[in-house]
């Protein structure tokens, strides 16, 4: 398998805490749309930070094992250098915005990495177009709505053309429409640029149509990882992880268990209704 992130035998604890990550062995497939799920406090955010070098080299702490990004270990690498390969958008994305205008914000990392101003300008324009904010270079940050500022943070990541983008609960503060809209945008970027996405998400239903791989974390350990089709029923078996699955997949697994049949991995309620009707599960089944 062609993996872009490889975590091997990784343990980590913060300076004044117990072990947060234990014996993590994880491979993220190139071009995948991987979603990381797990109960609160399971270590999802820390794992994201480990993939970007923030943990342990910026935050400090105690660790064992190794994290490789695009085949290179993160040991001894500056976070700013790794950011050219793997972009991270935190749950509190506002804390990542440092400039006065949208254009300056997107160009910030480019100029800091020595890109010529002309190229930075062109990349800024394209990145803003990609996230649906064309021509907003001169907008003050406070002229943008919360959703637009989040898209701006995403544009700042896209501008450096990272091969991997890590997002920590990007829709946690969004209404359902905003959440759907953001994931549609991520899917577009995923398909157009072939970027590998790693997303920590509590509300998997938003990302249902797009995700290709799932990683479930429990008590700081990887409990399950693999392609969705292979792992959903395994996650369903685990009482603690089951509620983290979208309801549609919980229904699928429950039906499979009761009937002994196997259903496709439904990506939408329509798809589920269609298959159930075709399988003769009553004509009253509607999306």
């Amino acid at each position, binding site marked *: 398998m062609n993996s872009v992130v490889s975590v091997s035998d990784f343990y980590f604890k913060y300076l004044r805490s117990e072990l947060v990550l234990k014996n993590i062995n994880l*491979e993220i497939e190139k071009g995948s749309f991987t979603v990381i799920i797990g109960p609160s406090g399971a270590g999802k955010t820390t794992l994201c930070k480990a993939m970007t070098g923030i943990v342990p080299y910026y935050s400090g*702490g*105690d660790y064992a094992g190794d994290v490789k990004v695009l085949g290179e270990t993160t040991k001894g690498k500056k976070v700013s250098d790794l950011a050219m390969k793997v972009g991270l958008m935190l749950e509190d994305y506002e804390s990542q915005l440092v400039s006065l205008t949208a254009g300056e914000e997107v160009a910030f990392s480019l100029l800091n990495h020595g890109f010529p101003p002309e190229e930075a300008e062109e990349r800024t324009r394209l990145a803003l177009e990609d996230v649906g904010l064309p021509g907003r270079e001169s907008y003050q940050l406070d002229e943008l709505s919360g959703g637009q500022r989040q898209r701006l943070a995403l544009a700042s990541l896209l501008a450096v053309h990272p091969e991997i983008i890590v997002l920590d609960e990007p829709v946690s503060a969004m209404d359902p429409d905003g959440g759907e809209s953001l994931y549609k945008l991520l899917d577009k970027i995923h398909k157009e640029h072939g970027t590998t996405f790693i997303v920590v998400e509590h509300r998997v239903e938003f990302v249902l149509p797009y995700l290709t*791989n799932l990683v479930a974390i429990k008590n700081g350990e990887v409990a399950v990882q693999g392609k969705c089709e292979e792992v959903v029923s395994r996650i369903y*078996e685990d009482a603690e992880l089951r509620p983290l699955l979208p309801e549609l997949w919980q229904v699928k697994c429950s039906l499979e268990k009761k009937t002994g049949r196997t259903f496709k991995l439904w990506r939408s309620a329509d798809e589920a209704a269609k298959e159930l009707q075709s399988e003769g599960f009553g004509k009253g089944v509607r999306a």
Partner: protein
Amino acid sequence: MSENNNSGAVSEVKQEPVPALTHVEANQEGYRWVAITAMLFAIGIILHTVSPNVGGVTPNWTIAMYAIVINLTRPPLKRAIGIGFVAGLTLIPSSKSAFPLGNIASELSGATCCCLLVKAFVACHMGDWRLTPFITGFVSTFVSGSVFTFILRTVLGLPLKVWIFAMLPVVAVVGVINGLITFGLFRPVKKLFYAQEGGEEE
């Protein structure tokens, strides 16, 4: 996904022995101290400007702030000298004394002294002692104030006795006030700036 033992299966929770962990100090690429220093200096300048003079005694917030910075970031001596120089510069515009430039020499002395004292405490494994901020705040202020008043006394041609018996006691009182400010603010500031390093976000 890889063919490892948890691929596609809920792994059994096994208590594997934890290997020897490597300790890594927080490496924030050397710029965090700048932000901390700038922010505390800004707060210090505002408080220095608005603090009333009570009985000839005013706390020197700038010294308290760089004492907190030095206690927090434990900078090398050169950096501490730089912090002292900048602190002196910030005090010049608002100085009401007869010789404002004396602030540069006094704050250089204060910051240097604070840095050496913090290093001495750390060397004696007393870096995290609760009273270290008070002592360093007091001594830095006393040294800085002594140097400043000595320069003032020299510029104004005052007798040595005036410096020793009139000026130094006032400096000592300001030193105690500054020590208390440093002591009182150190822990909240530390909590504020280093909150993310304790793993609280998980």
